């Protein structure tokens, strides 16, 4: 034993333990997110528990099992439970009972020893709704235009309503939205002319007529909308909740009706994928705690693309300067220190700089110069997607520089010399020889920058992200790309829904799903970048030989 210690072997094992812990934590973390995130989409079994509570009353609880944990029995002594005294720990279950209009909390803890009977009745139904969250219960009646009809008509009715809903949404978002946008633009145009002292009575009349025309269009659309609204509120379902209460749910609220306990594995799998599809393509509902994350995905992608457009040329040029042009002097040393520090400065500092410099100083001046008609409400003098892209471009600049420079340094100098010897100028060598060979390295840098930017939240909280953006920064209204608009972001969505929402417990699965989405994007980007880099390294190793 003593010899064993003297050999240092235990310490080697201990340091191996460091590796093991790191591996466990990385893989465990990814596994945890993946498991929790994916289980959000899997149709859960709906249990019915017959139980007896502390007062000896019998009651029925219906819902999904959300969490299990065991707690020391002594913590429950004060409840006067009628349970086995010798047990040291008691298992309890967190049940999602839904039915938010009937009970104040849609979650409840139940103690396993109090359960008398657990079953999975096939007739139990989950109704996913637009408001008030899920409903769990038994269907009593389906009412079509005031008349009770057979229950198997229900799916048909759900489909009918969802078609109408899509139509309404289309009407509201694109058509009515466009008219409102036009009216606002006309008002601003008039104001601009007033400010410039160029408003003639003729022009004023023209603008006025335009607004009148637009308002007429609007009232037509509004009528259509009202008609649709009437149609969707025709049919109802009557459902019995776990405590026997009957609730009437209008079809306009219903998104989906599923008998989870009846589904077989393939049907569940089908539903699993359709849920994932809905998650990435739907708008959020219920203060972001339900529905999809489409606007957040869209916002993240748009912002990152804008950032890429800004950061790529800058980063590549800076790297080329550092590797190909800069001499071995003090300036180069300073530049390298600058790059290292740009990489090391906390991201929130960029946010502060972006807010003060870009938003208030540059944006404020832009407003004074070009958007005076909208003042005092700012156009660019307020956080927006352009400022976010610019701020993150500075933040990710060193990533692109470092990666590109690494690529440049791996290109054998023989290639440069060859090109120069054949009479090419330095610029031509760069453009024709160096850059094409270094392009995978540049790609690596850009992908890494995108991955970094997609996950960064702190600076965005100051320079443009919001919890709920009414309009996407890209839409059908001229000039189509609205750089001044605020946007939603996946990372911020996680923070906001997980920490600022009123019902954190209900929102948690959605946060895991969002986190999974974000992590998969980032991990995929990183793996791509690293594999491109590795391939490149292999290639140069061969060139060198």
């Amino acid at each position, binding site marked *: 034993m003593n010899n064993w210690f003297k050999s240092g*072997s235990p310490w*080697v094992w201990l340091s191996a333990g460091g590796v093991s812990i790191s591996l466990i*934590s*990385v893989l465990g973390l990814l596994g945890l997110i993946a498991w929790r995130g994916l289980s959000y989409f899997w149709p859960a079994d709906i249990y019915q528990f017959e139980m007896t509570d502390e007062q000896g009353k019998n009651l029925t609880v219906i819902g999904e099992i959300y969490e299990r944990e065991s707690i020391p029995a002594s913590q429950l002594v004060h409840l006067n439970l009628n349970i086995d005294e010798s047990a040291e720990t008691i298992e309890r279950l967190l049940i999602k009972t839904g039915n938010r209009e009937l009970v104040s909390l849609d979650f409840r803890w139940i103690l396993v020893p109090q359960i008398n009977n657990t079953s999975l009745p096939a007739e139990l139904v989950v109704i996913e709704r637009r408001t008030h969250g899920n409903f769990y219960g038994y269907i009593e009646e389906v009412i079509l235009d005031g008349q009770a009809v057979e229950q198997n008509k229900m799916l048909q009715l759900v489909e009918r309503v969802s078609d109408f809903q899509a139509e309404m949404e289309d009407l509201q978002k694109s058509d009515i939205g466009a008219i409102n946008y036009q009216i606002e633009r006309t008002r601003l145009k008039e104001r601009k002319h007033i400010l410039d002292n160029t408003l003639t009575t003729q022009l004023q009349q023209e603008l006025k007529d335009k607004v009148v025309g637009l308002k007429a269009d609007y009232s037509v659309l509004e009528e259509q909308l009202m008609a649709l609204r009437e149609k969707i509120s025709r049919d109802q379902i009557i459902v019995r909740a776990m405590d026997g209460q009957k609730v009437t749910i209008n079809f306009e609220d219903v998104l989906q009706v599923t008998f989870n306990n009846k589904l077989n594995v393939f049907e569940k799998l089908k539903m699993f994928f359709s849920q994932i599809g809905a998650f990435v393509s739907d708008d959020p509902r219920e203060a972001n705690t339900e529905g999809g994350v489409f606007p957040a995905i869209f916002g993240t992608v748009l912002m990152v693309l804008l950032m890429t457009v800004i950061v790529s040329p*800058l980063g590549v040029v800076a790297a080329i300067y550092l590797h190909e042009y800069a001499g071995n002097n003090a300036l180069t040393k300073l530049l390298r220190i600058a790059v290292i520090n740009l990489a090391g400065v906390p991201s*929130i500092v960029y946010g502060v700089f972006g807010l003060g410099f870009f938003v208030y100083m540059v944006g404020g001046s832009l407003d004074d110069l070009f958007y005076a008609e909208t003042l005092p409400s700012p156009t660019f003098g307020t956080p927006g997607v352009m400022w976010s892209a610019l701020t993150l471009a500075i933040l990710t600049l060193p990533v692109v520089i470092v990666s590109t420079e690494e690529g440049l340094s791996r290109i054998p100098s023989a290639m440069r010399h060859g090109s120069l010897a054949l009479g090419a100028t330095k610029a*031509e060598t760069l453009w024709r020889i160096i850059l094409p060979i270094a392009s995978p390295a540049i790609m690596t840098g850009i992908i890494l920058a995108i991955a970094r930017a997609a996950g960064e939240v702190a600076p965005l909280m100051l320079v443009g992200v919001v919890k709920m953006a009414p309009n996407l920064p890209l839409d059908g209204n001229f000039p189509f790309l609205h750089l001044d608009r605020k946007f939603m972001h996946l990372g911020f969505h996680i923070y906001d829904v997980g920490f600022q929402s009123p019902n954190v417990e209900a929102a948690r699965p959605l946060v895991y799903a969002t986190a999974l989405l974000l992590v998969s994007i980032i991990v995929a980007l990183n793996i791509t970048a690293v594999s491109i880099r590795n391939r490149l390294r292999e290639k140069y190793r061969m060139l060198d030989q």
Partner: protein
Amino acid sequence: MAIASKSANYRKVKNSLAKWMITLGGISVLFTLVLIFMYLLYVIKPIFESAKVDVTAKFVINEEYKVLATGVDELKEVAYSITEQGKINFYQLVDGDGHKAGEKILSQSLVADGESLTQLINVGQKQKLLIDSAGNVQLIVPSFTANFTSGKRVIIPSIRYPLGKEYLPIDENNATITKLSFAMDDEKAIFVAFTQDNRLIKTTLLAEDDFNYDTAYEVQYQEIDYGAKQVNDILVSSGLSMAFIRQNDQVAVFSLDDEAELKATIIPQLAQNKSTPNHITTMALLSGGSSILLGDDNGSVSQWFEVATDEGREFKEIRRFKVSDNEPVTAIYTEQYRKSFYTETPSGEMGMFYTTSEADLWRGNLHQGNVQALSIAPRADGLVVFSNNELTIFSVKNEHPEVTWQALWQEVWYESYPEPEFIWQSTSGSDDFEAKFSLVPISFGTIKAASYAMMFAVPIALTAAIYTAYFMTPGMRRKVKPTIEMMEALPTVILGFLAGLWLAPIIEIYLPAICLLLVFIPSSVFITAFSWHRLPRKYKTLVPETWAPIILIPAILLAAYAAFALSPVLELHLFGGDVRQYITNDLGISFDQRNALVVGIAMGFAVIPTIFSMAEDAIFSVPRHLTSGSLALGATQWQTLIKVVLLTASPGIFSAVMMGLGRAVGETMIVLMATGNTPILDWSIFQGMRTLAANIAVEMPESEVGSSHYRILFLAAFVLFVFTFVVNTLAEFVRQRLREKYSSL
């Protein structure tokens, strides 16, 4: 030929153009960093500037009578003077509305015909109590309304009588009043007066409805038992809670809240233990109404307020300002909304100070000779002075008096606090709230969070780096290194979310398990290692020692499972069933769910890959001939590692740790989500903290642009910037040196 040379020229131009463009692009990186630095400085600079006072306008105005009071409107466009004769004259200060600057635009008599003013008492900045030669008392407020006619703003002056035009019935006996002061709110007005027949009286006017709408009132008289022959000054606090009566060097405080009995508390005499005793010369109330300022003949001003002590509430001298070396303080003027005050000495020397931050903001002479009246502009951005028939308007640039280097980094004694403290409290619901900007608690929080994170990360990251770089087979290293580095790419918002919503509840419930892990994991490693050591040789070749990290994974998982399974049992037998309660009740330590332990672990995970990656590089690039030499001389692998490899790589390891520290200090999202964000000064592992970065993220969106708060948040960002700059530059410098050393070896 011509074409060839043209194209050669063109190529040459293109070549040099490319060179310049690329150079410009390269330099722009440096420019960006400098721009960030300069911009942050530019925003911060105003908070450390001292005040500036400049003359903006001067008018010669011949008042026939002595000027008793002066004042100006909010926009500094119209000023007024009230003369001994009982007249108020308004003067235009800027050209406009058919009046030239300096022209008299309105003159009105404030007293009955044949009377004049014997006394004028300024109460606050606006209200004036007038006592005429017949002994009648009236309250007036010179007021200004802005009128917009044809797009132009015109200030129209007028006189308001907040308590009605009738003379105020101050004394039931109608004795002549020698000293008087008052304060009012919507419901009542309290007058405290000293009469010629040596009575100190309190008169309360109770509004029948609300003084804003109706000036009707009821009068209540009360005599204060004080027995003074003479009173120098009377002040009533703006909250109607206290009256201060000065009789020579003694100041008595009466609580006005207690209707039945008016008992005096004597503020202790000034300047004990001095050979030349000071005499109080003047007294003023500080904005907010709970502090009193006393000026003495020794040229100093002291601030006093009530402090809770063991013997109850007691007035204490909080701080003292040396206003003049040899002259007495003749007058103290206080601002309406901020805790700034101005002092004056007989020679006309003025000073501007801010109490809380103890800032000596400005000193100078505003006028030559005799000043008749001085008033601070309502927005505290100017002064109006009447002296020698001259009306002078000064602009005062003093936007951030509450911020000084001391106030940010040293303990500050705030009003109604028992002692000086470090406090960060930037906003509150009430209006008369004084913002408290001490960077100490949040800087402390930053250090605390970073320390716990480093405590967790450094051992794991360094051991992992050592093993990966020195003992691991190349094949395994190629897989393991990118996997651990993958962690660096994980968005911190996800780590923070997991820390706050997943880890924090687990730690709260399984706290004993976390402690057990500290013992279980190392022991499981040793046990596994020893069992492997004892394994027969033929099995050893099957699972070679180089697989240690893989062999250990199940062992560690098993240890962790054991720890969590034992946790409730341990909790039951050692901590009476509930660790949380045990910690709060038996140990007396408060327990937050989102505490330093959670932050330490979560941020540790964020820092591990940074440290691991750089330390691994440093160890891996130690030249092979050094280790070969050591091993050839008979040293074991472990000895070689400790004595040769780590020693050579130590600068690189140091720089890795520094980089990790830099990352931990600036991390925002994890701390924001995994702590309660309370700015406290406590090392306790079971309590949270607020860090500089999280503080910026929380407060920046709500802070008003250009305010002191906004600029202090920029200062916080600047502190972070400078700190990480130093750390990163140092780490980079060390790394460069190391690289040179390696290449020379």
